[in-house]
């Protein structure tokens, strides 16, 4: 098995960083944005018995966290697959 070229490795790393950047932005917007900074504005909107800001702080943000990791797992498995194939050729 030959060593993968360093350019393919840095491509993989850049793709990884891009995804981490996107997912971390969502992480920040949902928890700190919706749950804390804009909670009062969102609380004016109601869904059933929940004020929306309160719901994000105590429920919504947690659901989104789980989803974020799920997406990351899928994306990284694909990336691993793509870049390790090049390794064998």
């Amino acid at each position, binding site marked *: *098995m030959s060593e*993968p070229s*360093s350019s393919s*490795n840095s491509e*993989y*790393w850049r793709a*990884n960083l891009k995804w*981490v950047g996107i*997912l*971390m932005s969502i*992480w920040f917007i949902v*928890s*700190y944005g919706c*749950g*804390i*900074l804009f*909670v009062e504005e969102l*609380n004016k909107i109601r*869904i*059933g*018995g*929940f*004020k929306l800001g*309160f*719901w994000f*702080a*105590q*429920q919504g*943000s*947690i*659901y989104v*966290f*789980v989803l*974020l*990791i*799920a997406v*990351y*797992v899928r994306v*990284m*498995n694909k*990336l*691993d*697959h793509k*870049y*390790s*194939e090049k*390794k*064998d050729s």
Partner: protein
Amino acid sequence: MDVQTWTYLLVGLTFALYIGIAIWAKASSTGEFYVAGKGVPALANGMATAADWMSAASFISMAGLISFMGYDGSVYLMGWTGGYVLLALLLAPYLRKFGKFTVPDFVGDRYYSRTARLVALICAIFVSFTYVCGQMRGVGVVFSRFLSVEIEMGVVIGMAIVFFYAVLGGMKGITYTQVAQYCVLIFAFMVPAIFISMMMTGNPVPQLGFGAQVTGEEVYLLDKLDGLSEEFGFSTYTDGSKPMIDIFFITMALMVGTAGLPHVIIRFYTVKKVSAARVSAFWALLFIAILYTTAPAVAVFARANLLESIPDKPYAEAPGWIKSWEDAGLIAWVDKNEDGKIQYAKGPVYRTDDEFTKLEYKEGERGMSGERLIQNTPTDGKNELYVDRDIMVLANPEIANLPNWVVALVAAGGLAAALSTAAGLLLVISTSVAHDLVKRSFMPGLSDKKELLIARCAAGVAVVIAGWFGINPPGFVAEVVAFAFGLAASSFFPVIILGIFSKRMNREGAISGMVVGIVFTAAYIIYFKFPQLIELIGLPTKENVKENWWFGISPEGIGTLGMIFNFVVAFIVSALTPKPPKDVVEMIEGIRKPEAEGEELVVADH
């Protein structure tokens, strides 16, 4: 059958199960002892991580805390789950790829420095001990209330069980016991929550139930609770009362602290592949989320129940749980206006700034209505009822009149939560001592067998120390927990992140960053939380209130600022000092590579 028989039965059965698993999964090498031979399936590891993470505090205290804090309690919900996103995306896969046993290992190798390793090691041991003390206390509370044994006896029984399976089974034993403990604790948490949600709103899903309408009334439960809170002079439940900047900083400190806690990080070393480390972070958070999204619902149910059923009720007619928890020493009623009724309002019942710092009963003395009398001086405020926050979850099934076996189940669940976390922490302590301190720092030629023996002895000693603190709980446990998160946030987290994401970061930058972060955070917390120490060295002190805090940031949230200082100092110092050596740069490139198809990481050479 009565509650006590049920409790003995369920607790006995679960304990037998844990011991059985420990015997089956006995560890025979240091690899198995530290990281279970790195052969744990991702799903099982996720479950074990969840049990490891959800401590007595999550199971017993959190819902109670939230029910007294309302919206402000969100800091715990978001803080203790959001950290897993940081872990999964920024830390776990790379640390796993690096392939050694512990965080101090990574810090020591990445920063080519024994000093850095030692600093990381001391932090790891301190943080773990802080935590373990809280768990043992939790074990004691459950035993004393549900099995009517003395707290001391309860702690000793808990110690014996943990000692048995942690010392014998190591990480392998602990991991599989934690899988069982997760099942017990989540079942025990969900069953009463579902029952109560059904009763109060007719919706069996608690996560939806607390946003639904109250059974038989045309009003939403949360609106009703907001109304009740205002009626009795509390702040509106869904609005909270802390300043926004403080909420922001506390949430951040808890998130980052979670990602930096050694007993959580070490769990990701137990799987075979990097991809499995990512997947188990997903499972872990999913399993944690089940409890963490239910807890705020339980908080609302409990709060609404309390505000509806207690105020202005004569003590003689108060429900039985009031009296049984009063006997357990966690509820007190002072009939200030001598009308025989329980007045409940905002504010403390008794003073804690005179000769008493916590609640003290007058042994064996009863008041006019039969209530236990207390030694503390009552305040002038209207409030007559003291309710310890810790009992909200434990008393919930009684408050809602659920069958006896449910009450017993909650006791078994609380014990599972406390024991699983205690075991995980003890393992970190023993690994830190045997591997990082003795072997890597002082005796590199140590044989595997001897190292395993030292690890077992260290775990044994740690159990005894933790038990001692459980029996004689220092009054400062709650304060010290803020310390643990603050320190993890301001020291470990930046150092590990920079170690992975910056090739330029060097030894000088990392060490000076860690030192600045820790010293700043510790100084701020000590200044406000331990004024006795400040007075000792003859400096003036200020009261721990909003007006005196920096930018309105409480000591609980200051770790975030410490972390920012750590990053800034690390960047400046590393820019002014030499680059890291070539082999370290190669190591960083190594952990950033994609994982080859079918690649399995072997147990690291040690």
